[in-house]
């Protein structure tokens, strides 16, 4: 059936800010779907609160609302835009929930809007635990037996029926806190009692434990005519028990025979048919490793992280096809965009192996528990493609950019076998390295399998890599061994290290033996049909199949790799826009990236896509083949910047700001010189290498000081030190990470922070606007609330423009530059300069309407700002306010310290945009999920130096009707200053203490400012964690609290206005 005629205007709901578990994959899916809808002539209205995404660009949808994602807002947009349909399956759980609520309340029927792509009945059947169970039972599909209990006795009785071990999941505790696996009655009583206490609704789910079974997923598509296909299946290396988002995943499955493969495939088709899904769906199974018994774990009736992975793994564009199906098309009417000849109604055949490894944020959260459980913790992931599993795994490992490029890590040096065994028992992100070490020490496969439950097939594959390591160490290096090592994707550097040669020697040896990377195409059909889509991966021992595509000049754009805290989706936004502008200017574009969740790795963004690790060796393979005329590194974050020197060494011209000038901004001495030459003040600072030098520098500068490593992104390792002890501790932490670069110690100025992103053509600059941070300096700019336009005097404005121009010129910037300033005692200081794109680029582009990535790309190609229709300098302020609010994922990371500081911790952001500052601020808080008040009760505990300011904060909350609880000291101080505060016992004091208060679930808000430096109190840490884990908002800066107050004081006065940024 062709397109349904009366679908003319579709509202697409996005997924909101990036948080752990709901990330860039929805930007990829949403962008693809919106383009697919527009291609069909449908008018697309988009709502998504996340300004960092490509989908919220005005060229992706017809109307773009970057507004808080909640039911009220979507209602207003529907009233305003009057769409005839809503497509809710592209924005993750957030979008589905909103659509469900609108449907169930009758609002959609009343406004003649229909849900397309799914029905509310389908959503209910898939999402509601009980309905899901009933539905599965009806069609004979097994699910793990489970029940909801409110009393420990009931849990014990149920466990008696189904047998131990059982899983306990408390209802409505974020981050899965309080849950666990009980192997005995005693354990169950213990865990369940605690879980019931933590649960806001006093309920726990008790479920048969299927941990240790194989975890297999199928991605399924179905159209309205009932045609079903599976796009691919995937097998988790980590058995059931680890969230699939945190598992190493391989596609297709490796250890299933056809009988098992087809049994689960048929089951998945059965389920999608019964749920009556039209579109995409993900079905997760647990398969008993020694029988054909299986359970359906979960069904997601929408596009998901797994479907993004499946799309990239196979080349099958799930979101695009799902959007077409929603419009009424049948699968056999939709062309396979890869082959251009066949149709979407087929199943991709892979002739390679795909491995995905999650990127976990434990480098950012040193205190967080590394254990992997059913609560996802990864912020991003990498994918790699190769013709062998070993090769794909090795490529994925080095794509992670975690200073590891093989299975060799020195972490286990000097440990006893017993300690290794203990490490094997720990399920965390280091497990494959522990297994490799165990294999090196001769542990038997059976023993490793017994402990880890990982299939022996995978263990043997790790053993192949370990054996090859040992061969390279011991045997003479010859053509055969080198070819084998390369087939398994050992990087030259690792081979060199193992056999005592240099990387260069190995490289030359390869040339001599003719061992070189070949590139193969991802074509959905295992070469059965000719494909025209230039989507490539490398492997060794094969024939190359890349063809010249055009006679045009070629530019290579380096992507930003996996999403991690500090280097997020913003850089993908920049890479994609740069590719688009370069294409528009007539160049052939080549993109290299390894992140399956992003838009940049969609096969129709650049002329050629290389899905490869971003290391010098991998990039060199591509450079030698493609011989690009130039490369652009300034859009791909630190990942791309780090490759600058290697590219220059390969003879590739760096387009835009030169490599030396990127270095100059990072090299403290060079940079100081430039600042001095330009007469620009900066906080006094020193460059040091050792802890003692650092202490000396700190004393000389006077505390507090900022300590940080150079060459990092997102303020990694950056701390504020107030004492010598702090300095020593921080240097120790910094040195845990291989540190080739010096450490910087700067005087810490507590002023107002401001930031600009500018385009420079070598002479003139263009600044779209100045952004101002709500939190005072000391909190990482990525974690601060950022306000555009900044409230600064014309004088300061002029100073900022002047400094920006001077710095851009001195650094010979061609392209983008980001500068952070501090306004301290009416003097402007420069604290950081990055001659490249930054996190704020998408935000400032959208709210000012000035497409700075496109402009920067054109400047890189030689155009001048004046010729592009802009007057140089700071552009006039917009008449609206736009506030960027950071969003955190602390509840997902047990044990992570949530207090804000110079090291970035947020995972995403949302936007509040409105004509007034107050409304914009209110929207920003709303978008971040801060929706107060419910009970009007709060806890206020502050460090001594904040007490005076806390009085004012307390007074304002009191005026809003809040009941304030505080620990004795703070309470006394507040009371003395005329703010009523109810004293509560500290943690170590007898009940009822502050913890009990939070667990009563009547507290709306905790404001807790931790003392700076390392002397952080354990109490404060615990209070903050418990608040987060029980879903209580927790603020750690009085500036943020004050902004929240401003928002609350002004909320509800007027109805929110909806702003279409496509029409600014």
């Amino acid at each position, binding site marked *: 059936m062709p397109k349904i005629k009366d679908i003319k205007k579709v509202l697409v709901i996005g997924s909101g800010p990036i948080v752990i578990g709901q990330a860039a994959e929805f930007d990829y899916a949403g962008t693809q779907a919106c383009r697919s809808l527009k291609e069909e002539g449908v008018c697309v209205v988009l709502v998504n609160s996340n300004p960092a995404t490509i989908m919220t660009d005005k060229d992706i949808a017809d109307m773009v609302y970057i507004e808080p994602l909640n039911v009220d807002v979507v209602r207003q947009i529907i009233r305003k835009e009057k769409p005839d349909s809503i497509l809710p399956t592209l924005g993750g759980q957030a979008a589905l929930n909103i659509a469900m609520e609108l449907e169930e309340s009758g609002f959609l029927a009343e406004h003649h809007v229909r849900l397309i792509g799914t029905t509310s009945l389908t959503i209910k059947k898939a999402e509601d635990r009980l309905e899901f169970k009933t539905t599965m039972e009806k069609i004979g599909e097994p699910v793990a037996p489970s029940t909801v209990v409110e009393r420990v006795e009931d849990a014990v009785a149920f466990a008696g029926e189904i047998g131990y071990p059982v899983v306990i999941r408390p209802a409505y505790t974020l981050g899965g806190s309080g849950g666990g696996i009980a192997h005995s009655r005693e354990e169950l009583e213990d865990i369940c009692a605690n879980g019931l206490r933590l649960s806001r609704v006093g309920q726990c789910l008790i479920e048969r434990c299927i941990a240790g079974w194989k975890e297999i997923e199928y991605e399924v598509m179905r159209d309205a005519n009932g045609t*079903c296909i599976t796009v691919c299946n995937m097998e988790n290396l980590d058995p059931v028990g680890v969230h699939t988002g945190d598992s190493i995943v391989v596609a297709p*499955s490796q250890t299933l*025979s056809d009988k098992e493969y*087809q049994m689960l495939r048929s*089951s998945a088709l059965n389920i999608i048919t019964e749920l009556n899904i039209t579109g995409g769906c993900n079905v997760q199974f647990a398969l008993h490793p020694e029988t054909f018994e299986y359970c359906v774990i979960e069904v997601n009736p929408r596009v998901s992280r797994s479907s993004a992975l499946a799309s990239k793994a196979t080349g099958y564009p799930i979101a695009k096809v799902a959007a077409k199906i929603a419009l009424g098309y049948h699968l056999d009417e939709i062309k396979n965009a890869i082959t251009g000849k066949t149709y979407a109604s*087929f199943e991709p*055949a892979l002739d390679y192996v795909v491995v995905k490894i999650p990127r976990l944020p434990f480098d950012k959260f040193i205190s967080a528990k590394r254990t992997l459980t059913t609560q996802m913790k990864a912020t991003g992931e990498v994918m790699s493609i190769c013709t062998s599993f070993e090769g794909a795994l090795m490529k994925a490992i080095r794509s992670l950019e975690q200073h590891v490029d093989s299975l060799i890590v020195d972490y286990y040096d000097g440990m006893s076998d017993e300690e290794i065994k203990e490490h094997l028992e720990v399920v965390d992100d280091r497990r494959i390295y522990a297994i490799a070490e165990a294999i090196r020490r001769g542990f038997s496969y059976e023993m490793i399998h017994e402990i880890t439950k990982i299939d022996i097939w995978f263990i043997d594959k790790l053993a192949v890599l370990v054996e090859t390591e040992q061969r390279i160490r011991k045997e003479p290096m010859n053509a055969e061994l080198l070819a084998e090592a390369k087939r398994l994707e050992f990087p030259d550097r690792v081979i060199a290290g193992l056999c005592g040669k240099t990387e260069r020697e190995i490289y030359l040896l390869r040339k001599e033996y003719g061992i070189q990377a070949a590139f193969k195409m991802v074509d959905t059909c295992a*070469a059965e049909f000719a494909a025209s889509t230039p989507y490539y991966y490398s492997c060794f021992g094969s024939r190359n199949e890349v063809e010249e595509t055009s006679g045009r000049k070629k530019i290579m754009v380096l992507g930003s790799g996996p999403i991690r805290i500090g280097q997020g989706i913003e850089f993908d936004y920049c890479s994609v826009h740069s590719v688009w502008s370069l294409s528009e200017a007539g160049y052939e574009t080549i993109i290299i990236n390894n992140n399956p969740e992003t838009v940049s790795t969609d096969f129709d963004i650049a002329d050629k896509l290389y899905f490869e690790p971003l290391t010098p060796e991998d990039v060199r393979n591509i450079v030698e083949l493609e011989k690009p005329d130039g490369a652009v590194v300034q859009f791909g974050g630190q990942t791309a910047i780090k490759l600058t020197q290697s590219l220059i060494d390969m003879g590739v011209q760096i387009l835009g700001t030169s490599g030396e000038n990127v270095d100059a901004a990072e090299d403290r001495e060079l940079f100081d010189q430039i600042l001095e030459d330009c007469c620009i003040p900066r906080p006094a600072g020193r460059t040091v290498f050792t802890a003692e030098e650092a202490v000396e520098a700190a004393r000389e500068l006077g505390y507090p000081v900022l300590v940080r490593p150079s060459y990092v992104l997102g303020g990694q390792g950056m701390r504020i030190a107030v004492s010598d002890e702090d300095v020593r501790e921080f240097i120790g932490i910094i040195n845990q990470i291989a540190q080739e670069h010096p450490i910087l110690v700067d005087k810490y100025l507590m002023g107002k922070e401001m930031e600009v992103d500018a385009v420079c053509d070598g002479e003139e600059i263009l600044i779209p606007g100045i952004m101002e941070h709500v939190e005072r300096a000391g909190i990482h700019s990525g974690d601060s609330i950022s306000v555009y336009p900044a409230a600064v005097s014309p004088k300061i404005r002029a100073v900022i423009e002047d400094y920006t121009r001077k710095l851009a010129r001195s650094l010979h910037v061609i392209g983008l530059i980001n500068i952070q300033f501090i306004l301290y005692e009416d003097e402007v200081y420069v604290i950081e300069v990055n001659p490249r794109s930054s996190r704020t680029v998408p935000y400032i582009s959208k709210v000012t309407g000035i497409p700075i990535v496109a402009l920067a790309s054109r400047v890189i190609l030689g155009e001048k700002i004046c010729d592009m229709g802009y007057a140089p300098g700071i552009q006039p302020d917009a008449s609206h306010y736009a506030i960027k609010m950071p969003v955190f994922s602390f509840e997902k990371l047990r044990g992570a310290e949530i207090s804000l500081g110079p090291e970035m911790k947020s995972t995403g952001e949302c936007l509040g945009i409105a004509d007034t500052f107050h409304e914009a601020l209110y929207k920003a808080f709303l978008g971040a999920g801060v929706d107060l008040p419910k009970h009007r009760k709060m806890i206020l505990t502050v460090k001594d130096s904040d007490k005076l300011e806390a009085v004012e904060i307390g007074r304002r909350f009191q005026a809003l009707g809040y009941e304030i609880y505080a620990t004795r000291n703070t309470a006394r101080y507040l009371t003395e200053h005329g703010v009523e505060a109810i004293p509560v016992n500290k943690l170590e004091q007898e009940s009822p203490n502050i913890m009990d208060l939070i667990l009563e679930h009547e507290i709306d808000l905790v404001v807790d400012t931790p003392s700076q430096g390392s002397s952080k109190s354990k109490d404060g840490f615990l209070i903050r964690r418990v608040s987060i884990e029980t879903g209580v908002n927790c603020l750690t800066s009085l500036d943020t609290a004050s902004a929240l107050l401003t928002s609350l004081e002004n909320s509800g006065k007027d109805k929110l206005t909806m702003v279409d940024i496509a029409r600014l």
Partner: protein
Amino acid sequence: MKAFLILEDGNVFTGTAIGARREVISEIVFNTSMTGYLEVLTDPSYAGQAVVMTYPLIGNYGVCYADMESADAWPDAYIVRELARLPQNFRSENTLEAFLKERDIPGIAGVDTRALTKILREKGTMNGMVTTNEAYELEEILPRLKEYRVTGVVDRVTCQEKKLCRPEDAKVTDESYKPQYLLHEMLPQAGRNQMAAGNKGGQERLTGCRVALMDFGAKANIADSLMRRGCEVTVYPAFTPAEEVLAGNPDGIMLSNGPGDPAECVSIIEELKKLFVSGVPMFGICLGHQLLALANGAETEKMKYGHRGANHPVKDLDTGKVYISTQNHGYMVVDGSIPEEIGKTSFINVNDGTVEGIRYAKRPVFTVQFHPEACAGPQDTSYLFEEFIGMMAKKKQTE
């Protein structure tokens, strides 16, 4: 030991010898299935061909003998990129390497199977040689390769004597295995429930239908699919005269898959003409489909590189619904070559529009080019066995 794959066009691939160390000349074909290598190896339709697996890791789950689709392995040679060294599956009884040796099948590993597949796709299926002789001489070999023709393969693969199989003889994959026949909306709910209940032996729902299965190289799951649905199956050698088959008074006749050029099977086609006019319901698969079409005046022709894999979309022209099917054929029935009044195309291949099924007019007879018995591959079209049983039951009722 080094091994070489020499193609008719002079291309040579070097790899490592696997399986038996024999030199063979054969027709080289590729299969894109990602699982089911044992089913492929034991599918008699591959007799006379050397199979290239496009999926690079072969042998991962070892050899589960219960999954064999016939008593032996048939390809002349086996070509893979990587053969698993340590297979892993709870049912695995052997390594694939050992199995190839046991069945005397030579092979080659370490081949860039994608590059090879592209050659076969672009130039069409061609002959080739697998050898371990490092001193091979192309000038001597290439003419021999060009000359080579596959003939008389149905003779080689069909059974020698007729054999009776009762429902309870249906193969049990594993005690814990529950095949999924629940998928299709076509099945009434009652049928679904019965299906769910009755895997083992299927006694609860004996239909009592008696099927004559013409073995042109039948995959085991054709008979098993009928037996699991309560049918009694008599397997006949390919060259059994029609009179003898009809004398057994079957409720239905099943025409199996098989290897080779259908037009070569002249005498079988003659017997099929007689079976066709008997009025007994018939269901043909793959070669059976082609042979019945030829018996009804259609033409067949060799395809450039055929359809071999488990991901081929076929569209039911009545409902517009598309099913994913297993396929293994190098010949096809020419579209429009069968007179409309005799038979109509019922299924087409969505990728290339070729004929995938014929429904014959005025008779309870239908045939498909693809493999509803799957193994390896999707079980989506297994409902066709239900349809066949329905035809037989209806015929019985009216009698």
